[in-house]
């Protein structure tokens, strides 16, 4: 750790990474169990934090428990490094740790995210930390925690399947837009957090450790590297990602990334841009460099 960073941390008046070392260790203990049982929700005892529940406290505590002085941090909210939530979380973490931050997905060692998986392929030396509002994939069909725990224990997922069946009967297809339930390592059904369907296939056999934290619901869970992650699908109704109907990003021209629709108030027209701003910026920069390099 650089002396200057330590100084930053000390000046905040808090322990390194805000939490005391015992609390961090308890979170890490829960995470170890979560990694050992892929997709299984492990209870943990959240600490008081200077941000409100529901604003990413689960993911934040995972990050704070794991981060070291040499880590390079990236925080995104719906793919953007600049949204209020991402900025505030990043500020809290850097003020209490002094770690370097980046917006470049490739340079980050810890990426904390809300509702997206970066478009850039991730590596084995990176950790992806998800902020999770509702960790229980069975909540859609069962309000009781006692029952959902029993259903997980007995692999009784038929009612979730019925939910998908009903969706298909009513609408002709599964209409779940995000939080699409996945089966991890052929065993536990898991809520992948409110990522779009687009991101679900990226979790499958990913070399990157995925950690999920739900502060309000007091649960963590994990997808270890190279783990099977399969969306629930029927033989005659396979899982499908979003289709943008051939639209491209208005800024970088990408046709192979998850796009956000934006309404132009002036014209009343709808256009699309990349949800992952870092990816988009880099494509634009790369395009400019190419143009500059061109004779």
């Amino acid at each position, binding site marked *: 750790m650089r002396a200057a960073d330590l100084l930053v941390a000390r000046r905040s008046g808090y322990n390194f990474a805000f939490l005391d070392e015992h609390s961090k260790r308890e979170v890490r203990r829960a995470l170890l169990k979560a990694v050992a049982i892929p997709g299984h929700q492990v209870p943990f005892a959240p600490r008081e934090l200077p941000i409100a529940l529901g604003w990413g406290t689960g993911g934040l505590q995972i990050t704070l428990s794991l981060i070291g002085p040499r880590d390079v941090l990236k925080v995104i909210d719906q793919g953007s490094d600049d949204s209020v939530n991402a900025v505030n979380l990043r500020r809290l973490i850097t003020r209490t740790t002094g770690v370097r931050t980046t917006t470049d997905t490739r340079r980050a060692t810890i990426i904390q995210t809300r509702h997206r998986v970066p478009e850039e392929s991730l590596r084995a030396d990176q950790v992806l930390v998800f902020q999770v509002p509702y960790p229980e994939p069975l909540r859609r069909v069962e309000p009781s925690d006692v029952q959902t725990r029993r259903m997980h224990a007995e692999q009784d997922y*038929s009612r979730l399947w*019925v939910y998908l*069946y*009903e969706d298909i*009967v009513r609408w002709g297809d599964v209409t779940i837009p995000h939080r699409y339930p996945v089966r991890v390592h052929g065993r536990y059904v898991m809520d992948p957090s409110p990522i779009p369907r687009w991101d679900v296939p990226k979790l499958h056999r990913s070399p990157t450790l995925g950690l999920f934290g739900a502060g309000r619901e007091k649960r963590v869970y994990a997808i270890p590297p190279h783990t099977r992650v399969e969306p629930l699908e029927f033989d005659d109704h396979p899982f499908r990602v979003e289709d943008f109907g051939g639209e491209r990003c208005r800024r970088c021209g990408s046709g192979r990334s998850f796009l956000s629709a934006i309404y132009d108030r002036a014209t009343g027209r709808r256009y699309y841009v990349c949800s992952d701003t870092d990816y988009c910026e880099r494509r634009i920069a790369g395009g400019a460099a190419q143009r500059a390099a061109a004779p």
Partner: protein
Amino acid sequence: MSIAPAPSAVPPAADAQPLLVLERLLKIYGEGCPDCVARTGPAAGTNVCPRCRSVVACGDLSLRLDPGEIFGIVGESGSGKSTLLRCLYFDETPTAGHAYLTPYEAGRVDVFAISPQRRRYVRHHLLGMVYQHPHLGLDLDTSAGGNIAEKMLMAGTRHVGRMRERARELLGRTEVPLDRMDEPPRRFSGGMQQRVQIAKTLANNPPLVLLDEVTTGQDVSVQARVLDLIRSLGRSLGLAMIAVSHDLGVIRLLAQRTAVMKNGRIVELGLTDQILEDPQHPYTQLLVSSQL
């Protein structure tokens, strides 16, 4: 005289292995004490243990059921007959006792002693339950077809088209209009809900179906239709059934053998016509003579 070809394919049922063997089922609600069984029952006139106030819902019940047989259990409310069914369907955990189902591990494994996952398998593949109240067996807000699909999903089917085909077949058999397949049963009449429940029960072709007061509380015409349906299904699918009812009329119509229960005990077990025409136990005689 012209007679059908000799039905030599039918196995000699009494010599064959029974479908179900239930041994000494005990179900006590409460703490229980060593005196519970001895101090309750028809002789004591109660199923509440005078010493520890526990309720002996089923005291040492044993029975055997043959494949394809319809077995009746009759008795007043609180006699323990529904508890017996709920124990067999794993809705309740027995205090003691053993149950062996021939289709499960050739009847060598006590299904009361297997893991919850295995129990789920037995419950959804080998057993069916039709509850008195359709809301116990159906999700009234999931479509009729979805309810049937649920059973098949439990059995691992992952094909919407095939599940819908099977649902259509079963709803046809149980006389539910197919154009209502995608409606939630909450909008159906009680009789139709009951028929959807029966269709759902049959989804995985279980060899044994448990019927808990299936016609109680329904209009007479609806009762008749449901009973006719159960009879014809039993015959055409070769289902074995245990039918619990407080109504001797229902038992007479359905069952070949009948057990009479009182205060958590079987007081009499015999051929249904013998129970009705030559009842032995004082309670059975009272029951038969009280018939309308």
